[in-house]
């Protein structure tokens, strides 16, 4: 087992709306990532995965609020640190972030190189402009980006180029953990491929030590990440390796999610595409029992009664369901 | 619809603006129902009478008299009758010639000052450095103080047939009349203006006229802007290019200048309230055109418009059913802004002497213009211009508040 880069224990955060209502978007998430590994987080829109991405960084501003839990980055617990310390010591340096809408992530009126200077100066005020330029140029070249981009403004770049520039900027300080929130969803297929290729290269070349990749597009995860976690209504419902999760999902929600995708591999071709009926619960008032019970076709009255904890099985897999693994596998086989 | 209106009224800015505006509107509507006097009647014979209640002097003499045991001979009377310059004059004399120490004198205590004066002043004292007129003026002051101190009252005399005056009665210091007993009192809440007209009544009439000017100008400007914006935005192509070009041109060429040129050139005699309003309307459409055009362009390729086009609906039908309802809120907001800028434009034109050339109606701008021409701002007649400024500012303030309130509801992005 490799060195643990990121460990999250029972993290809870909430949104406070304009009308002072609490929305429990991340409700007790635990996870670990080892060095050199990548973890995918999948789920429908509104399941809390983007909020999880923001929460993992340990720096909160309205409307997002921290409630409880620990975030340990390479042995340092950052949830006890002062917010300003987190921001200036950890963010950008240890944990890096790639936002969902990279289109607007760059200041439209600033040259890319000036922004890179600001990023590096925020962590190393003494860095000389020349060193920064050399580093940026070299990094851009390795990642297949033309160095001329450095002298341009964000408005002069195409969408795909902007996204790749954002990725290069986020990882310029070789962070321990990279959190990527739907980095390719808004792009065309060609740009998407380039972004994915770039993410792989970041890992291979050691520019990042571990990665969390958040998306609603499951096929992407299967291609990019080592492990996959499925999130539903602010909680993790299942975790396993990418392969296991696609070919042997246990939780009924994971099963439903996998049923709605096509994996171009033998053995999956005969599966019918299915959608999960219903909508996720309102997180202002999360249901008491299993949160998926209302949409689950295997649910009984008991499911809605008591909360379910994560259960381990096999080699390090876990899931959140009242039924046993064998029972679920049997039920699936009967269909 | 009802829901939208509810939402609009929940915006505090809109609500405050609405309340201010509604109060002004109600005043303008109801005031003339109670005060039937001609707003431009020249009541006062003279310039700028200050605010207050005016009572007929001869009537006070004949009215029922009451004796009140209120001290009028003492401090209150001295305070009232000896003004700042009298007191400093007295203090000056006392220090220079009366041998009184400066520290002893307190000009704010009139009783003590007068006592000092009576003890020390003598017209025959040696007054080096004073010319005789100065000496005389001190003598007059002394006499006046004596008059104030004595409480002999005022004697009313009647003229006999042979021309002799006979004392008929004396009015004591302690005589009072009840203001309710007087039949002819006149209250000017805001005084009178340079022509002796009641400012409050005039102001209400002027506000009515100015609101009407704003409304006419706003409606014209909005109508032109709406039509041009719709045509440019919906048709696009060459028509759009031409309209946009002209609009840009008139955005840069100051409308103020065009307003001046036209207003001057139509001639003094033709420039009535309606015409001024129309000129303002015809010179301020650019802003509305721009915003309507950009709204229509963003709507033009929406699905519901495309669907309508595919269904073969006519251009008018598409504009009326698929575009206008979506930009209605913007048009209303534009109208609100146009009304307030129309009122301001009239005021500024009038200040230049290019407002409605009329003596039959008052407008806020004309009131301001008259007040300035008669130097109300230099002679301290604040009531002649300050209420006018406040009214213009409040109309504009309330309309703009309503506008930002609407903006917050219809542009959630700006919500803060």
């Amino acid at each position: 087992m490799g060195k643990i880069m990121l460990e999250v224990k029972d993290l809870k955060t909430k949104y406070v709306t304009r009308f002072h209502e609490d929305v429990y978007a991340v409700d007790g998430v635990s996870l670990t990532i080892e060095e050199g590994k990548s973890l995918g987080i999948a789920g429908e829109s509104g399941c809390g995965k983007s909020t999880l991405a923001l929460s993992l960084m340990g720096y909160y501003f309205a409307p997002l609020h921290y409630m409880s839990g620990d975030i340990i980055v390479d042995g340092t617990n950052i949830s006890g640190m002062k917010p300003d310390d987190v921001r200036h010591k950890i963010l950008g340096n240890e944990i890096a972030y790639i936002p969902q809408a990279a289109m607007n992530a760059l200041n439209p009126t600033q040259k890319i190189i000036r922004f890179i200077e600001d990023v590096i100066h925020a962590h190393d005020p003494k860095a000389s402009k020349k060193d920064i330029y050399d580093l940026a140029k070299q990094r851009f070249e390795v990642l297949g980006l033309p160095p001329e981009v450095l002298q341009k403004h964000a408005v002069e770049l195409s969408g795909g180029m902007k996204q790749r520039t954002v990725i290069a900027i986020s990882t310029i300080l070789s962070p321990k953990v990279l959190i990527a929130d739907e980095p390719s969803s808004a792009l065309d297929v060609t740009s998407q491929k380039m972004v994915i290729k770039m993410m792989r290269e970041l890992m291979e070349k050691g520019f990042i030590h571990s990665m969390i990749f958040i998306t609603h597009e499951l096929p992407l995860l299967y291609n990019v990440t080592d492990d996959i976690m499925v999130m539903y209504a602010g909680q993790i419902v299942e975790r396993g390796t990418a392969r296991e999760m696609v070919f042997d999902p246990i939780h009924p929600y994971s099963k439903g999610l996998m049923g709605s995708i096509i994996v171009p591999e033998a053995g999956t071709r005969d599966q019918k595409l299915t959608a999960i009926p219903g909508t996720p619960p309102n997180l202002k008032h999360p249901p008491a029992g299993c949160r998926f019970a209302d949409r689950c076709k295997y649910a009984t009255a008991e499911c809605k009664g008591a909360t379910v904890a994560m259960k381990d099985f096999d080699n390090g897999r876990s899931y959140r369901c009242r039924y046993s693994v064998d029972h679920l596998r049997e039920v699936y086989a009967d269909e | 619809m009802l829901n939208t209106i509810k939402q609009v009224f929940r915006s505090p800015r809109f609500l405050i603006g609405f309340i201010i505006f509604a109060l002004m509107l109600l005043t303008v509507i109801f005031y003339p129902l109670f005060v039937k006097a001609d707003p431009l009647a020249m009541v006062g014979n003279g310039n700028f009478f200050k605010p207050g209640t005016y009572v007929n002097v001869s009537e006070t003499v004949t009215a029922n008299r009451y004796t009140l045991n209120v001290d009028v001979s003492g401090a209150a009377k001295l305070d009232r009758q000896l003004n700042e310059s009298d007191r400093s004059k007295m203090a000056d004399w006392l220090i220079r010639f009366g041998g009184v120490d400066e520290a002893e004198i307190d000009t704010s205590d009139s009783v003590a000052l007068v006592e000092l004066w009576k003890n020390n002043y003598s017209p025959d004292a040696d007054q080096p450095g004073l010319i005789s007129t100065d000496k005389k003026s001190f003598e007059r002051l002394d006499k006046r103080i004596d008059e104030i101190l004595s409480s002999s009252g005022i004697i009313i005399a009647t003229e006999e047939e042979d021309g002799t005056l006979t004392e008929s009665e004396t009015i004591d210091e302690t005589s009072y009349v009840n203001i309710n007993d007087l039949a002819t009192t006149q209250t000017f809440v805001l005084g009178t203006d340079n022509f002796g007209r009641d400012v409050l009544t005039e102001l209400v009439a002027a506000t009515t006229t100015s609101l009407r000017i704003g409304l006419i100008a706003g409606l014209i400007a909005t109508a032109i802007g709406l039509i041009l914006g719709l045509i440019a935005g919906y048709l696009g192509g060459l028509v759009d290019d031409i309209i946009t070009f002209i609009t840009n041109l008139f955005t840069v060429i100051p409308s103020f200048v065009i307003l001046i040129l036209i207003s001057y050139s139509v001639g003094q005699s033709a420039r009535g309230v309606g015409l001024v309003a129309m000129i303002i309307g015809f010179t301020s459409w650019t802003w509305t055109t721009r915003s309507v055009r950009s709204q229509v362009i963003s709507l033009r390729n929406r699905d519901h418009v495309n669907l309508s086009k595919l269904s073969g609906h006519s251009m008018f039908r598409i504009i009326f059913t698929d575009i206008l309802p979506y930009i209605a809120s913007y048009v209303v907001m534009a109208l609100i802004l146009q009304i307030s800028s129309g009122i301001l434009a009239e005021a500024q034109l009038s200040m230049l002497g290019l407002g409605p050339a009329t003596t039959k109606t008052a407008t806020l701008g004309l009131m301001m213009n008259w007040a300035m021409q008669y130097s109300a701002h230099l002679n301290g007649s604040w009531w002649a211009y300050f209420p006018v400024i406040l009214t213009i500012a409040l109309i504009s303030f309330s309309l703009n508040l309503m506008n930002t309130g609407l903006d917050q509801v219809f542009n959630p992005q700006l919500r803060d």
Partner: protein
Amino acid sequence: MKGFRKYYGQKILWYIFTLIIAVILNFILPRLMPGDPTSAIVSKAVTGMTDATAVQKVLEEYTAKFGLDQPMIVQFWEFLKNAIRGDFGVSFSQYPREVSDIIASSVWWTVALQLPAIVVGWILGNLLGALAAYLRGVFDKVLLPVFLFISNVPAFGMATVLLTVFAVNLKWFPTSGGYGFDLIPNASWEFYSSVLEHYCLPFLSIVLITIGGQAIGMRSMSIYELNADYVKYSRFLGIKDGKIVGYVFRNAMLPQITGLAMSIGTMMGGALVAEIIFSYPGLGSTLLSAVTGQDYPLISACTLMITIMVLLANLFVEIIYGIIDPRIKAAQQD
């Protein structure tokens, strides 16, 4: 660099074209109106309606110089030729002064008053607006309604209130004029200090009005920008707030510059009327006396001058904008 040259070339050409249109309007609008002042001049000149021989002479001179009895197109040509030479004839109301002479003596007062006042007001307004957006809280709660109200007070209203309070009641400043009425313009210290004394109140009233309007706009622009994605992204990269505020300020300011270009005409119009309150010897007061004196040549020259000033100010703003907004350059290179 090529992008910039193209941008400026286009802008300058466009403004020249606008100026031509403005000149044509300045010429043709009065002549199209029912109360056409020029034909009034002709009729007065021909029938000798005025008895003063001097005025009669001026009218005739003016009629001849501008060919008022000629066809419209000839008149325009004469008008243009004379205007380019700066010749607008002799003033009717201030005979025998040349109109160009009157304009020349008043235009600098207006420029020296309005340009700094609008610039200072604009800068202060933007700073306060950005500060209100950034600090929020009490600062914002107190300042916002104040700004909202001030921005709705007409410039002449602000001028009158300041005059009443500071000049008439407190006597801190003189009440009217551009310098002491007992002084003759010269290069003495006494004259300059008098000019400065007379400058304060008109300057302050324009500044205050400008601050009000600009602060509101800047505040909402800044709030909008503070919620922009790049602000969040910059925070998540550990960049300090000071830097981020710099980004926001710059980006929120750009639309404010465009806004300034759009509203500079209206602002100057308001400020001209405010001049009248102080009897400031600028174009505003000149315009008033021209209107009162039925002095058409002077009015026409004033309006033309105001137009040119507004156009120049606009062009200047757009040039600045081109320099500081890189998007302009980018757009030109496509």
